[in-house]
């Protein structure tokens, strides 16, 4: 093609390429915005997204009410400051007390930080405990400082075949009537006292007997 004709054609096509460039950028950002809205919508429908269960407070200090439920994410830090994934504002719990992470088919691993200690089902753990430390599964009790917590895992998660038997018996599950229309939202706790504000849809399972698997 003669140089002059090409020059005119190329000069004219500049606006076309600029237009397409702007269009591509506009569609890309539109896509980003739409995906962000869609993700927010999905997460709104899934309030427990990212969590594997809850820690129910069996005993705590004045700032931690008995029966309070603390969502447990898949991994994070437990400590006394608000920025921790699980905040326990009780005495003897340091700012960042322990790390935890959940492994499918195993359970919740806890790793106390240097100078911190906790206990899992009565077994004391320190920073040096390493990989031999017991795991938390459904019903396990974690003690950190003055706080005593019981772990409740969501149904449908992979749990180990040989789950540890719980040392403290869980209460009988509420009747269908109690589940359908709780009068005051109170549900029995292990020590027999009513826990105010409990969620009506929690189902307390009967603990496994012998080799019974979940």
């Amino acid at each position, binding site marked *: 093609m003669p140089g002059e004709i090409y020059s005119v054609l190329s000069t004219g096509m500049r606006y076309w390429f*600029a237009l397409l*460039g702007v269009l591509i950028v506009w569609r890309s950002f539109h896509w980003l915005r739409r995906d962000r809205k869609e993700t927010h919508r999905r997460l709104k429908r899934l309030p427990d997204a990212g969590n594997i269960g809850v820690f129910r407070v069996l005993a705590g200090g004045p700032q931690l009410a008995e029966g309070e439920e603390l969502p447990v994410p898949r991994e994070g830090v437990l400590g006394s400051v608000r920025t921790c994934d699980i905040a326990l504002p009780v005495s003897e719990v340091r700012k960042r007390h322990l790390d935890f992470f959940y492994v499918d088919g195993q359970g919740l691993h806890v790793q106390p930080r240097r100078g911190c200690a906790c206990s899992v089902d009565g077994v004391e753990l320190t920073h040096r405990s390493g990989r031999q430390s017991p795991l938390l599964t459904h019903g396990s009790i974690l003690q950190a400082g003055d706080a005593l917590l019981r772990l409740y*895992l*969501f149904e449908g998660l992979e749990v180990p075949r040989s789950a540890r038997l719980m040392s403290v018996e869980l209460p009988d599950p509420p009747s269908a009537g109690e589940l359908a229309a709780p009068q005051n939202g109170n549900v029995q706790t292990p020590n027999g006292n009513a826990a105010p504000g409990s969620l009506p*849809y929690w189902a*307390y399972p009967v603990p496994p007997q012998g080799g019974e698997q979940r």
Partner: protein
Amino acid sequence: MKASTADQTRRAGRALCSAVMLFFSTAFLLLALKDYAWQGFALAVAVPAMIWLGVSLLPHLFPADRLLLSLANFLCALGILLLYDTNPDLAYHQAMYYGVGLVAMLACIYAVRLLRQWRMAAALLIPFSLALLALPLLFGSEINGAKNWIYIGSVSFQPSEFVKLSLIVIVSRYMSRRRFFPWFIFAVGCLGLLMLQKDLGTALLYYAVTLLLYFASSGNWLLTLLGLSGGAGAAVLGYRMFAHVKKRVAIWLNPWADYDRAGYQIVQGLMAIASGGLFGVGLGLGSPTTIPIYHTDFIFAVICEQFGWIFGLCVLAMYVAIVWRGATTAMAARTGFHGLMCMGATLMLGLQTFVIIGGVLKLIPLTGVTMPFVSYGGSSLVSSMCLIGLIQGVASLNEEHLQEDARLAEYGGEIG
């Protein structure tokens, strides 16, 4: 009836893919009309077809993010287009590297999804990466003042481009487990080797990414600021100790003082950008080859010359979109390791883009890093595709976790 989310996503993907395909079919057709070369006509069909295959078909076979694929494919094809205009042989090589990069990207996606023993992988990567990075010092060739290339026959590669990936994996792994020494010693080792090779641009990237990842994992302002000050101090020390650093800073401050020798490259780059104006001089016109090493360091100047400022800003915006996507993916990751890894890959791409474009525009002193996806170079292109692969791998895991959460929610939130 309102379209479902999947329909909307498909339509968005099709619209974007169509715009990208249209761009390259018309661009290559225009170049083909210049000298009636059959290769140009073939590329006008092949490049849009490859883009369509990459963006529309690939996500059906592999878990991939269509938006990231679209943008990465656009930038890669833009590099091939500009190289074809000036040196067709380089364009064919780049197209081949793009094929290798696609395979590497898929490998990275699957590595993120399937690999469980990251502890072992990170431990093995440390000595391997340090050895790889030390190779240029022993067997390498000095190019443009830096000894960071290895030649194996006719093939050359830059180990520092691949050790980038190891750095991200190792630092993320050990930071997420709060083990200080392994990642610290590895990072110091890498920086030391890079300083010995005089590859200061890559050293800057490694340092910045490590520091920012440390801040992301710990939230410790004090140590991060100390690290920043340390970096600034090291920069001043480098300026005083190394003559070529002094030269680079002098050229940055006033390239016109020595415009026909030391400052020639940057002056030609600035003149090319200025001559492009808003819409450019036109594809296939102008004189990009007057800029020394235009195909690697100064490819952005060529973009601005040929397509103009507006298009140059659009290219910048595409990098911003990639970084935005990477950052949101990192923040949605369910484990600290995946979040840090994704953030590291995003930071690496973003900082590298900033460093090279900043250098070309004379915002900061010029360094020897390349423009991700666009610049000519197999090592750079493949490592950039690998970084995108890491981000996509984490994105696909996030999606799986959301679906798992939806499945668990079907149990009604009951405790098992």
